[in-house]
C-alpha cells in the first residue's frame, strides 16, 4: 500500500446523522435496540475495508440543544451503551476496528480501562475508544455527585477543567493498560506462582479530581494500548488530542481551515513532548452520497423539509457523488489530514454508498487499501504496538 493512502472510518449513530433520517424507507427505526441492526452496519463497513467504526453514546437522552434536553418527539431518542454494542459485534467481525464512545466526566477510569481492554480481547486487537466530556447539567443530575456550571465560553475555565480532567482520565486508563507487563503471567509450576508480581505495577495516579492505585484486574490487552480518539473543535480539546490521543477528529470546512487546525495540533503536540509520536488527524464530514449530485442535494432538501429546518452540523455537510467526495478528501489530505471519519446522513443509504461507491473510487485512484493488511487496529493505522512504560522503566 502506498504511504499516501488515506484512512477511512465511519461514525454510527441511530439511523444516521440527519435528524429526519429515521423516516427514510431504508432506516429500520424499530430495530435500533437490537444486536442485528448493529451487526449489519458493522459488517457492511467491514465489507468496505474501512479502518474502523465509531459508535456514538451519551449519558442522557439525545438532544438538538447543546446543553439541555429538548423534549422533542420527532427524532430518534433512546440508545444502548456503545461499549456493549461494540463488544456484542466483535465476535461477528474479523478485521474492522471498533471504537465506542465513552463519556469520561462521570465514569470511573478503572471501569473504562478494563472495559476497553476486554473489548480488545474479544476483538483480538481491534479496540479503541472515543473519549468525550459532558457539560450538560441534566447529565450531571443523573449521577448527583457534582454540578457543572453553565458554559459561557468554550475556551473558558469550566470547559478547560473538564478537558484537563479528561486528560487525567485517559492518563489513568493508559497507565492501567500498562500496569501488567505482557509476560506477567508465568505459570511457574516449580514455585507455584501464576504471575510474577514484579511485573504487576501500581499506577499511583494522582490528579486534581481523582486518584487511582492500580494495578488493573485485566491483563495488558492484545494491542498493548488500544486506540484513544477524541473529537475537537477548539484549542482546549485540540490540547487533549495533542496530549493523549492516537486519532483526533476535527471539523474543517475548507482546506485553509484544515491546514490551520493541523498546524495548531502539531504545535500542541510538540508542546506536550509528543512531537515524534504518530498522531492521526482525521477530518469529520457529514455525507449525502448519490450517483447524481443533484439527487444528493435534493435528498438533503427533502430530509430538511421533513425536519422542518435546515440541517446544520459542526462538520462540513457534503452532498454529491463518490467521485466528488474522493476529490475533496484528496484536497483535505494534501492539507495535512491523514484520514476521515464520515458521518452518513442516512445510514441505510449513505453507508453502502461509502462502501460500494466511494471505496472503489478511492481504490481506482490508488488511495485506499484493497485488502485488510493487518490483524490489529493499530496495525491498520500504521501505529506500532507501544512498549510498556513500566517495563521500560525497570529495564
Amino acid at each position: 500500500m502506498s504511504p499516501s493512502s488515506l484512512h477511512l472510518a465511519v461514525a454510527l449513530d441511530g439511523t444516521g446523522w440527519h435528524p429526519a433520517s429515521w423516516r427514510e424507507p431504508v432506516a429500520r427505526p424499530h430495530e435500533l435496540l437490537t444486536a442485528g441492526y448493529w451487526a449489519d452496519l458493522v459488517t457492511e463497513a467491514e465489507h468496505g475495508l474501512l479502518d474502523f467504526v465509531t459508535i456514538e453514546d451519551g449519558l442522557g437522552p439525545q438532544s438538538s440543544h447543546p446543553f439541555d434536553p429538548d423534549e422533542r418527539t420527532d427524532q430518534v431518542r433512546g440508545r444502548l451503551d456503545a461499549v456493549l454494542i461494540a463488544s456484542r459485534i466483535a465476535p461477528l467481525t474479523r478485521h474492522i476496528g471498533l471504537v465506542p464512545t465513552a463519556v469520561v466526566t462521570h465514569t470511573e477510569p478503572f471501569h473504562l480501562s478494563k472495559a476497553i481492554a476486554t473489548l480488545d480481547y474479544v476483538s483480538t486487537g481491534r479496540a479503541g475508544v472515543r473519549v468525550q466530556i459532558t457539560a450538560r447539567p441534566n447529565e450531571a443530575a443523573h449521577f448527583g455527585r457534582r454540578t457543572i456550571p453553565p458554559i459561557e465560553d468554550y475556551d473558558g475555565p469550566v470547559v478547560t477543567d473538564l478537558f484537563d480532567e479528561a486528560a487525567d482520565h485517559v492518563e489513568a486508563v493508559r497507565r492501567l493498560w500498562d500496569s501488567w507487563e505482557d509476560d506477567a503471567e508465568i505459570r511457574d509450576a516449580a514455585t507455584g506462582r501464576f504471575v510474577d508480581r514484579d511485573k504487576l505495577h501500581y499506577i499511583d495516579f494522582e490528579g486534581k479530581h481523582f486518584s487511582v492505585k492500580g494495578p488493573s484486574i485485566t491483563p495488558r490487552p492484545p494491542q498493548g494500548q488500544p486506540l484513544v480518539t477524541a473529537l475537537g473543535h477548539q484549542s482546549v480539546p485540540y490540547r487533549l488530542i495533542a496530549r493523549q490521543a492516537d486519532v483526533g477528529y476535527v471539523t474543517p470546512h475548507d482546506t485553509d481551515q484544515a491546514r490551520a487546525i493541523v498546524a495548531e495540533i502539531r504545535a500542541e503536540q510538540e508542546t506536550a513532548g509528543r512531537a515524534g509520536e504518530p498522531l492521526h488527524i482525521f477530518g469529520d464530514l457529514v455525507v449525502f452520497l448519490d450517483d447524481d449530485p443533484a439527487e444528493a442535494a435534493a435528498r438533503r432538501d427533502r430530509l430538511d423539509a421533513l425536519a422542518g429546518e435546515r440541517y446544520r452540523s459542526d462538520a462540513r455537510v457534503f452532498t454529491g457523488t463518490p467521485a466528488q467526495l474522493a476529490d475533496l478528501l484528496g484536497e483535505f489530505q494534501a492539507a495535512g489530514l491523514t484520514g476521515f471519519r464520515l458521518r452518513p446522513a442516512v445510514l441505510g443509504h449513505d453507508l453502502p454508498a461509502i462502501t460500494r461507491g466511494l471505496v472503489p473510487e478511492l481504490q481506482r485512484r490508488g488511495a485506499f487499501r484493497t485488502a485488510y493488511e493487518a490483524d490489529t487496529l493499530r496495525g491498520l493505522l500504521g501505529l506500532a504496538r507501544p512498549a510498556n512504560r513500566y517495563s521500560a522503566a525497570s529495564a
Partner: protein
Amino acid sequence: MSKPLKQIHLAAHFPGVNNTTVWSAPEAGSHIEFSSFAHFARTAERAKFDFLFLAEGLRLREQGGKIYDLDVVGRPDTFTILAALAAVTEHLGLTGTINSTFNEPYEVARQFASLDHLSGGRSAWNVVTSWDAFTGENFRRGGFLPQDERYSRAKEFLATTQELFDSWQGDEILADQASGVFLRDAKAGSFVHHGQHFDIQGQFNVPRSPQGRPVVFQAGDSEEGREFAASGADAIFSRYATLNEGQAFYTDVKNRLAKYGRRHDQLLILPAASFALADTDAEAEELARIVRRQQVSGATALKHLEFVWNRDLSSYDPEGPLPDIDPDVSDNHISKGRAQVRMYRDPLATAREWRELAAANKWSIRDLVINTGNRQNFIGSAGTIARTINEYVQADASDGFILVPHITPTGLDDFADKVVPLLQEQGVFRTEYEGPTLRHQLGLAHPDDVRGEQRAAS
C-alpha cells in the same frame, strides 16, 4: 399422591480468580482469551444450562503487603465479556457480579438494560457490596463505606436501578415514519429519586428491555444479606452445597418470603458447587484426591493458614506441624481483598480446633488445609453425581447448582456430555430451552406481569 418432581436449575461458573482452579494442569487454558469464554459458554448452552455466571473483584488481592501470586490472577470486565458472549450463544443466561459500592445506579442500569437488549432478554445481575477502603483506592469516589451502611446503599442502589428500568413502560417508541412521531411521550424515562445515598433525577435513556429488568441475584450469608435477598432478589447465589446445611439455609430463606408478600417459587436458592467426575466412583475419589493436592500446594497451605493466624508464616514447613503461636487478633489484616478471611470470625477458636484436628489425624499443615477446605461437593461416576444432585434438589437443599469446574475452559465438557443426559432421562432437567429469556429458564414471571398481578390483588 407423591409430590411432583422439582425441575433442577443448573448454571456454569467460569472459573476465574479463586483458589480452586488448577492452572498448572496440562489441559488448563487461558483465563482471559475470549476463546476460553466462548468454549465454556457454548458447552453450557449445549447442555441446556440456565446461565453462565461471572464473579468479580475490583482489586488484585494482597498478602503481607504484596500482590498474591499463587492463584489465577486477571479477569475481564463483566459487562463487556457478557455482551460478547451474547454473540456466540442464543439462549444461555448471562449473569454478572456487579458491585453496588463503586458504581452509580444510572450507569449500571444503562449497562444492564443494554445487555438485556443485546442478548434478547438474557441478562442477570448478582448484586454484591464492598466496604473496604482497599478496593476504594482504585476509584474516583475512593474511600469506603462504613460496614453498617453497605446493605442500605445496596438496597437503595437496587431500588434506584429498578426505578430507572421502570421509567419506560415499553410502548413509547412509535417510530411512525409517515406521521413523523418517533416517541409517543416526550417524558419517557423520567425519574426522580431522593434518598439517603442517591439524590438524582432526569431521564433514563435506554428504553425498556426484553426482560423489563434483569434477573437479580444476591450473594452473601449474613442476617442482613438473607433479608435483602428475601425482600427482592430472584435468586440467591449461596455457599451451602451440602444436604443438611443446604436444607437449613433453604428453609430459613424461603420462610422469610411471606412477610414480603412473595411465594416460595419467587426466589431460587442456587449454591455454588464443585465436582470430580470419572468413569467409576473409585476413580472419581482418586481424581478428587489428586485435584485437592493440586489446589493446595505447600506455599498455598501456608498462605491459607495466614488468613487465620494473621501473621507471616513463611518460615514454617508446610509438611510439618501447625504453628504453636496464637493468631494475631488485631484488625490490621495480613490478607487484603479476599472474602474468605471474614469466614474466620474467631481466629483463636479456629486455631485451637485445627490444632486438635491435626493432632488427632497426624496431619501436616498442608494435610490440614486439604482436608478442611475445598472438598468437591459431588464426587463420583456420572450416575452417582446425577443421582446425588437430584436427591439434594428434591430434598430442598437447593433449587439447583452453579457448577464451578476446576479446569478452564474444558472443565464442564464431561459434565455436559455425561451427567446432563442422565438428569434429562430422569425427567428433572430440560431437553429444550423453555423460551427466549432467562426468566423463562428460571420460571420467573416478567415484572410487568407481576405488577399486573399486584394491581389485580389490591
